[in-house]
């Protein structure tokens, strides 16, 4: 049997991005949207399938000899990279499926799909990046197409404005990240994460401050990509202005990719047992960021009047939950907290993507943006509304979906690590989040419709994507064992 290249998922996404452009030029006009969407979906599924296959067969994991490295160790393939590639590829597949109905009647379909796939390629490379240079290149590969995607509706002021804001904040935080990387390079003489770690011991004490500032700036770069405080304010604007499938893509896949570089960089290059004696305890910063991010995200979400904006702020809140995985490291439950964060990102990839795709469905039907506009929607589209209910309750942490399990384990992990206050903050925020998530549920099911929605079509692609996300969200709760074993295994290998 010919072994697959270790970077098969990344290659599949990249090739599909280019194939989309070829299909665009050769396929006849009438079939072009289907052909392009089909190519994109096939590419995403191929990446998903190969990454899942690698995970299942133990590629790059301890039982087959540990991480595999490529390109002079600038890229690695291990449990973590494969898990996050699965997340990115799954979200890409859902978005590719759900976008079809959204973009089929617009111009530049091929651009849309190839940009999505290129961004996904960048994100999956981020999952593997093992050098600050590779991280930066992958980050840019993921970001540049995202700017284009956000402003895809180029005659829509909101979309263009969102794209511009995203670009400016993105450029700023890329610069911050690059500066941080250069400071780390100045202090340690390397960009490769393992070599940085090896060089930490020989950093002269005069340069420790330099290194500390470098780490802080790197964290700033991560905060941007994960939509965490203090670089979160682009997120509500971008998610609200962007086409809803793009919001789904960015808030799920892009966030996960941002977290994987944070996980890998901080744990590999700056392990706590080495940096804490040097006075660079990044868990303190991250614990503060986690608390502020989740609280701010949830309180802001609670005051919104528009569903998409509420979801955008709630996405900031969830970034705060996931940050616990880093903030609570250095205790006695490192594998569990970091693993639980990874589980939450995986589950979030489905429930949040599904929720945004439902918003895409509502936009497709021409239903307004506010909570009131959703009043009585369940009388006309009960199946889709049931799926949305599953997403929202799962996001809130009720046991209708796997969001319950991942939050539960995150909580156990944080408490086990001795960060009880973070666990309590998570609980309080979850309780608060139920309030605003249930407002949407209430609007859909309990309020009476103001009039006819004028729903004429049942877009197959969007429905299929929403339903698939809902089914996976529910089934993951029942079959959570593979998720938890994989994530904890990946986290333990990383530490």
């Amino acid at each position, binding site marked *: 049997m010919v072994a697959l290249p270790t970077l098969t998922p990344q290659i599949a996404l990249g090739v599909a991005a280019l194939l989309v452009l070829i299909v665009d030029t050769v396929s006849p006009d009438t079939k072009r949207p289907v052909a392009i969407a089909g190519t994109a979906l096939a590419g995403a599924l191929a990446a998903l399938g190969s990454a899942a296959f690698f995970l299942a067969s133990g590629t790059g994991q301890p039982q087959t000899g540990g991480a595999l490295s490529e390109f002079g160790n600038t890229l690695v393939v291990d449990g973590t990279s494969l898990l996050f590639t699965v997340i990115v590829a799954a979200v890409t597949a859902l978005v590719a499926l759900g976008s079809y109905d959204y973009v089929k009647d617009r111009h530049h379909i091929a651009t849309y799909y190839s940009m999505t796939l290129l961004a996904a390629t960048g994100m999956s490379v981020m999952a593997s990046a093992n050098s600050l240079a590779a991280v930066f290149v992958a980050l840019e590969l993921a970001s540049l197409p995202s700017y284009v995607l956000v402003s895809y509706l180029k005659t829509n002021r909101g979309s263009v404005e969102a794209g511009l804001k995203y670009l400016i904040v993105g450029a700023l935080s890329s610069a911050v990240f690059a500066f941080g990387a250069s400071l780390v390079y100045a202090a340690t003489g390397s960009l490769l994460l393992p070599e940085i770690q090896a060089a930490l011991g020989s950093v002269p004490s005069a340069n420790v401050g330099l290194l500390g500032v470098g780490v802080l700036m790197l964290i700033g770069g991560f905060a941007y990509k994960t939509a965490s405080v203090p670089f979160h304010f682009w997120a509500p604007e971008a998610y609200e202005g962007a086409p809803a499938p793009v919001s789904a893509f960015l808030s799920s896949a892009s966030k996960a990719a941002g977290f994987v570089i944070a996980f890998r960089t901080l744990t590999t290059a700056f392990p706590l047992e080495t940096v804490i004696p040097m006075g660079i305890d990044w868990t303190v910063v991250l614990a503060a960021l986690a608390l502020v991010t989740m609280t701010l995200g949830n309180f802001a979400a609670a005051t919104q009047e528009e569903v998409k904006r509420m979801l955008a702020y709630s996405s900031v809140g969830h970034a705060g939950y996931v940050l616990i995985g880093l903030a609570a490291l250095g205790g006695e439950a490192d594998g*569990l907290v970091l693993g639980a964060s990874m589980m939450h990102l995986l589950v979030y990839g489905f429930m949040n993507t599904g929720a945004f795709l439902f918003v895409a469905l509502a936009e497709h039907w021409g239903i307004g943006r506010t909570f009131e506009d959703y009043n009585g929607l369940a009388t006309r589209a*009960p199946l889709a509304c049931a799926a949305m209910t599953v997403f929202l309750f799962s996001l809130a942490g009720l046991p209708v979906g796997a969001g*319950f399990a991942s939050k539960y384990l995150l909580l156990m992990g944080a*408490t086990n690590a001795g960060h009880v206050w973070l666990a309590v903050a998570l*609980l309080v925020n979850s309780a608060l989040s139920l309030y605003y998530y*249930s407002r949407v549920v209430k609007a859909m099911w309990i309020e009476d419709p103001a009039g006819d929605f004028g729903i004429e079509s049942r877009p197959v692609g969007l429905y299929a994507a929403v339903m698939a996300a809902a089914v996976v969200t529910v089934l993951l709760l029942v079959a959570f064992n593979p998720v938890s074993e994989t994530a904890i295994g990946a986290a333990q290998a990383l530490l």
Partner: protein
Amino acid sequence: MSWVVEALLLGTLLSAFIVMLAPDEKAGKLAFLLTLPQLAGSLLMWLAFDGSGNALVGDGNLAFETMVPWISVGDIYQIQWHVGVDGISLPLVVLTTFLTTLAVLAAWTPINKRQSQFYGLMLLMEASLIGVFTSLDFFLWFVFWEFVLVPMYFLIGVWGGPNRKYAAIKFFVYTNVASLVMFIGFVALLFALPVQTFDLPVIAQSLLDGQLGSFYGLAPSTLKLAAFVAMFAGFAVKVPIVPFHTWLPDAHVEAPTPVSIMLAGVLLKMGTYALLRFNFTMLPDIAAANAEIIAVFAVVSVIYGAMLALAQRDLKRIVAYSSVSSMGYVILGLVAYTEYGMGGATFQMISHGLISGLMFMSVGVIYNVAHTRMVGDLSGVADKMPVTCAVFVAAAFGYMGLPLMSGFAGEFFVFVGSFGSETLAAAPLFTGAAMFGIVIVAGYLLLAMQRVIFGPFRADTEHEIHPAATHDVVPLVALVLVVIALGVAPDLFFTMIRDAVNPVLDAAATVGGGA
């Protein structure tokens, strides 16, 4: 037969989805048919029950037990699929399936929109209630416990009365916050124990063996007290105990009749069941040390709940507040730590489930016809609806504790048990005060009956009062028969309840709790 619990859960879940996809006009009948296998299954469990002792403590045998690994969390935790029943949980499972079947029947008349969703949610709720009473792993139990909120929220919110939106959100937020408070308390205990499992029997045993360490700077004794208070407050909302009862009347008044039946009949029992399983079984020393305080809560619930009921004009509100009062007896029985006290409390859970279900059902039938429930609007209804009114009278007497009805057995056991309690100081005083509650109960029920049911016929309503439909009367009569059967032969359930309660008392006595 160890698969029977799984079969019951899976069957109910599947039925729920089938009903949800069925056309509206067929959903009611289909749902009724689909509840019958669950009812038969639970009765079969009762007949074939071969368990002994308590599920959490002592060395009893669980009936229909399954324990398989479910989710492994690194090498730190193992979450199990652990279900099984003992003499305490089995009667509650039977109560759940029986009341669901009757509630579905009672829904045929009043529910006339979005039927398939309604019946689907009822079955979904049945499934999660069965799960609450059978699961023995904390994670699994908490999944079901929280999930109950979801169907209930919709059932009140969509099919409720004029103020349904407020009532639904109040119920939802209130009980969810309570769950989180309880959760914090339990998790704090868990982390101070040297066990790495969520298995409730293991946790209970470890606590009783005094293996509790300190957590976050709290000494074991302080931690125990704090956890007890958090869990007690959390469960007290569900029960509800005064002063945590304010969500209940809103929820009841707005909820449609079948939902009220489930709410009063089964959902409130989740609270007392959890109190018994967690607080009173796992932390008997704290419960015993603070028995008088808890008993004060119980007696206040009894008296204050009854007084509130006395002040109402709406028949449904009367029944709703009387539930607060009846749940007070359960708490008093539990805190007595005697065989009859704790056993009687468990029996009272079943009995109250049946009788309050019966009350709500008969009030609902009257409302279906008259479209009003106000005491002043109706008089002499017995002339027009003889069977329904006869049932209402029977239910009211059951509530007051007429001998040969299950209410008498339940309350009698509780009073016998609490009177002789050695854990509770001044036990006769507390018992006497609680018994006085019955006088008030008799007061408001007799008053309501006198004005609504008897006397000359008069109805301030535009609707003609006519006898109820057969499918409304059948569940009423069935319930009355069961209430009488349990009153005549309480041992149908009481033997297994006693058997399951005794290990708790033994364990309590060992740790210096139960005197």
